């Protein structure tokens, strides 16, 4: 059609794009950025507690994840192979994986975890948005299966080492494919969950809240993680129902056990604040790709994670079960989504009308 309706001079190009023309302005990289922003204080706390080793482990895992994404993700047409990275998802996977690892882990293992997390956890499924399981947890599950000893060697916080943040842990620098030398006993400690499971010894709740405990990098300070979660809920970066369901279920389930036999079972407060629960509930289970997309589904998914966590912690062979609980529920997410699909507008009324019509003269 003619374009003479336009002003004189050079004719600008017309487009015929279909409505809507307005957008909210929230973008996927923006959402990833929000989560990275929320996880930053957790990382800072990890460095404060475990020293520079924490940063190194996170960096190694992130490098593994990002390089794998750049090398193997399908290229965007006409763009550099690094263009994929701009969505920020591989970076986030790497950082989250790093924060689930112990501080003295050999760096090559952390790197390998990142590679496996992105490779087997995401790319093999078709990349961002297509994976069934949380990539960071796939990476961690792989490491746990391959190097069980290194993954359960919990070093003491830096304070116990003299408080120098720059003291690096020897374990970090084991040669690739080599296990680190056994650490002296003074350098390692049991996590609160270990203490509970094997020695029946509870840790003070204040220590759990502040994070002055042995454990994975990111799982130490429940308070910081909780604040990060509140920030993310305010930014609508994830479905608040999932962490709410997980925490409520764990509290309720362990609360009942504790009420029945307070001598045998840990208190609900201890259950909530220890181990990877808070970190998993806020940062792992809420991954939108691997959780059900339906409000009722989110409740079921979260409740499932909560029940599994308590089952594994209380009756399982391992002291901690958050990772497997989330991975198992990831597998069930599509099924949950399918059965909890909300009824479309007008279908309730339609069903009611049909039922009325089908009722043989009832109510007349």
């Amino acid at each position: 059609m003619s374009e003479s309706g336009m002003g004189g001079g050079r004719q600008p190009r017309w487009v015929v794009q279909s409505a809507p023309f307005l957008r909210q302005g929230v973008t996927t990289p923006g959402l990833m950025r929000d989560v990275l922003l929320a996880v930053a204080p957790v990382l800072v706390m990890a460095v404060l507690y475990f020293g520079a080793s924490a940063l190194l482990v996170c960096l190694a895992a992130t490098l593994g994840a990002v390089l794998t994404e750049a090398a193997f993700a399908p290229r965007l047409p006409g763009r550099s192979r690094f263009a994929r990275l701009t969505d920020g998802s591989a970076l986030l996977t790497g950082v989250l994986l790093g924060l689930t690892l112990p501080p003295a882990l050999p760096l090559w293992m952390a790197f390998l975890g990142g590679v496996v997390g992105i490779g087997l956890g995401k790319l093999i499924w078709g990349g961002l948005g297509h994976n069934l399981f949380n990539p960071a947890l796939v990476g961690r599950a792989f490491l746990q299966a391959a190097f069980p000893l290194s993954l359960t060697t919990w070093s003491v916080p830096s304070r116990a080492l003299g408080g120098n943040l720059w003291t690096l842990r020897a374990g970090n620098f084991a040669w690739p494919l080599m296990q680190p030398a056994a650490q002296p006993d003074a350098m390692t400690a049991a996590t609160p969950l270990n203490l509970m499971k094997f020695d029946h010894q509870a840790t003070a709740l204040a220590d759990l809240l502040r994070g002055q405990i042995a454990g994975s990098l990111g799982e130490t300070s429940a308070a910081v993680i909780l604040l990060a979660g509140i920030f993310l809920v305010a930014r609508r970066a994830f479905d608040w129902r999932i962490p709410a369901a997980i925490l409520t279920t764990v509290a309720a389930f362990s609360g009942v056990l504790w009420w029945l036999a307070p001598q045998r079972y840990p208190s609900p407060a201890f259950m909530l604040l220890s181990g990877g629960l808070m970190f998993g509930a806020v940062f792992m289970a809420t991954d939108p790709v691997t959780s059900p997309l339906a409000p009722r589904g989110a409740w079921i998914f979260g409740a499932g994670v909560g029940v599994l966590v308590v089952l594994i912690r209380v009756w399982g062979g391992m002291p901690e079960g958050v990772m497997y609980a989330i991975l198992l529920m990831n597998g069930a997410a599509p099924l949950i989504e399918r059965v909890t699909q909300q009824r479309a507008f007008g279908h309730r009324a339609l069903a009611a009308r049909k039922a009325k019509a089908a009722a043989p003269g009832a109510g007349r």
Partner: protein
Amino acid sequence: MSSLSTLAASFRHGIHPSEHKEATEGLAIQRMPFVERYVLPLSMHTGAPCRPLVAVGDAVERGQVIAEPGGFVSTTLHSPVTGKVVALGPRRYPNGNLVQALEIEIDPFSPQRLLPRAPVDPFPLSDDEFVTEVQRAGLVGLGGAAFPTHVKYKPPPGKTVTRLVVNGCECEPYLTTDHRLMVERPDAILRGIAIAAHRLRVEETVIGVELNKPDAIRALEGAVVKAGAGDEVRVVPLRVKYPQGAEKMLIEAVYGFEVPSGGLPLDVGCVVNNVGTMAGLTDWFDGGQPLIERVVTVGGPGVERPANLLVPVGTPVRAVLDHCGGLKAATREVVMGGPMMGQPLAGLDVPVLKGTSGLLAFTEAETRLPAEYTCIKCGRCVDACPQFLNPSRLQRLARAGRWDEVERWFVNDCVECGSCTFACPSGIPVVQLIRVAKSALREQKAKEKAEAQAKEAEAKAAEAKAAQTTASAAAAGGQG
């Protein structure tokens, strides 16, 4: 009331796009001057096309019937000007199709007076007479879908109407036509309501107006008091939310009723009419003026002088834009209707229709496609969808071409409001993909139906043939 904005009624889900109404909401409606030629498509409403009653060369008067309804769900077409029919043939329609249209050249020496018609008292008419009268006025829903109004005043037997819901939401950003009408002609709207409410024998009438139009709410409330209709008519302020003007959403906002899937407002005892349609009833019964002109908001960042114009139906879009100072050089796209559901135009040589609520000119900023990422199932579309669908799932299935499955995920309940695309952080054209899925599904259904019919016809033919042979064999046997 407006201070209680967060407590005001609304429907569930929906979105909050920025309103962009500042440019035109304060501008009084102005009459667009007459131009040389008018193009009147014979089908600018939902339903059967009109049948032309004039021939090329005929002189016509402003307000004269030039085409009659082509069925019950169809309406009358009037000449918007005094002049001469110069053509009857295919003309470009805003959606790009060619449709049969009458072209009328204005008589430059005519004073353009309306063909006189004595006022009709609508109250003593019988129901059928009233419906015919409204059909004779050429009235259609002025919100955009252009559904013939008279059809709504003839509920099928067995359906009772108890409530008239008058739509003054105007939830589409940029548009301010209904807003101005409510501010400038509240008495005409109230008079139309009296006519419609009497005919439908409703118990109550509500006018739903969003809280971003406090002056309209005040004007209508004043008119209600003036008309002494306080017992029957309520002005209901609604929370500002899109798509509140969709009739099912409006009913939910006001009454909390859910119109059954595939059903009509009638199924919950409601009739929904636009405020413009109410004023149109008044114009026809009291003033003898059929629907030959309507208010159009000309706006958007690409237009020189935004305005609310009273435009004769059939005026070329180009003429309207020129009257508003033309388009800025930065204009990339012109849209007929609102920015959420409007029709993009491939050219400006198309007419303003009865259903045209706005002409919006957009620049680079509004038309630039956002960077697209894969769906991460964040659920923002699910929270936005007023129909409680799963747009994330639907766009995925549409991409994969799985038409059978989209139907099971309620694709046909989609009202195409575009809230999903608006909310999507991954820049996915969700509603656009759903539209593709809907039309593909329709095509597949039509094909299946045609195949089934062909098969049936074949089977029948074979049966008939078999019957014939047995009959002739029997006849032969009888002879032997």
